[in-house]
């Protein structure tokens, strides 16, 4: 088990990160509280839910347009 580096791609279930150097998924080590090391680094960040992210992405989304 290992900790994902910053910016690493994480699996949809949150249990693995993509190790490009090894070309393989690596299991993420979870501590007793269930937080990852990357999560621990951001432990001071507010808890944001998927619904919050969905709202944020909806507000960020622009209409498709032709590009000159």
């Amino acid at each position, binding site marked *: 088990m290992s900790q994902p580096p910053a910016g690493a791609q994480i699996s949809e279930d949150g249990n693995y990160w993509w190790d490009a150097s090894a070309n393989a998924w690596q299991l993420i080590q979870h501590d007793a509280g269930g937080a990852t090391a990357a999560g621990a680094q951001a*432990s001071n960040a507010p808890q944001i839910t998927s619904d919050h992210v*969905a709202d944020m992405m909806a507000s*960020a989304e622009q209409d*498709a347009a032709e590009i000159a």
Partner: protein
Amino acid sequence: MGEVADIVNSGVTVIKLMANHASVQTVQGGYANGFPAGFDGQGLTGGQFKAVGKRWKQDSAWYDFTTVDMDFTVKMHWMWGASIHGAGHYIDHITVTLDVDYLPLDQTVDVTANFPTHGSRLGTEDNVIAAMPFEISVQMNYFLGQLVGWRRSLDCLVQGDGNWQMG
């Protein structure tokens, strides 16, 4: 060109792109097309390129800790108006790209385009307009103190007459 029975895609059926704050990687690239069945691309003439993009851009105030800044654009590109022996409006070089102007360290974007093996035939027998529907899925992963995901599917269509849909 005789009667056109079907419009087929003899190119790629999947394109995969990945991005983080540092780079955009093409995991699986290439081009799709929309030709008459049995046509190998020889004798295709004319055509012009078009690009259509959908952008996600978020600028938050410095004190807003619940909003994540980002700026990226998913684009579809294709050549339209190509003809075979002077007839028809066919499509070639259909592809998808991802441009990233800004992503934070703890955010990744995955883009996957899925193309069918058959498209649609519009227009008339004498003036066929090829159309190719496909789907682009955009997936985000965040580490905002915890893993949070988001996914959006875009129903896309490119046509030989230059018309399009992306949404």
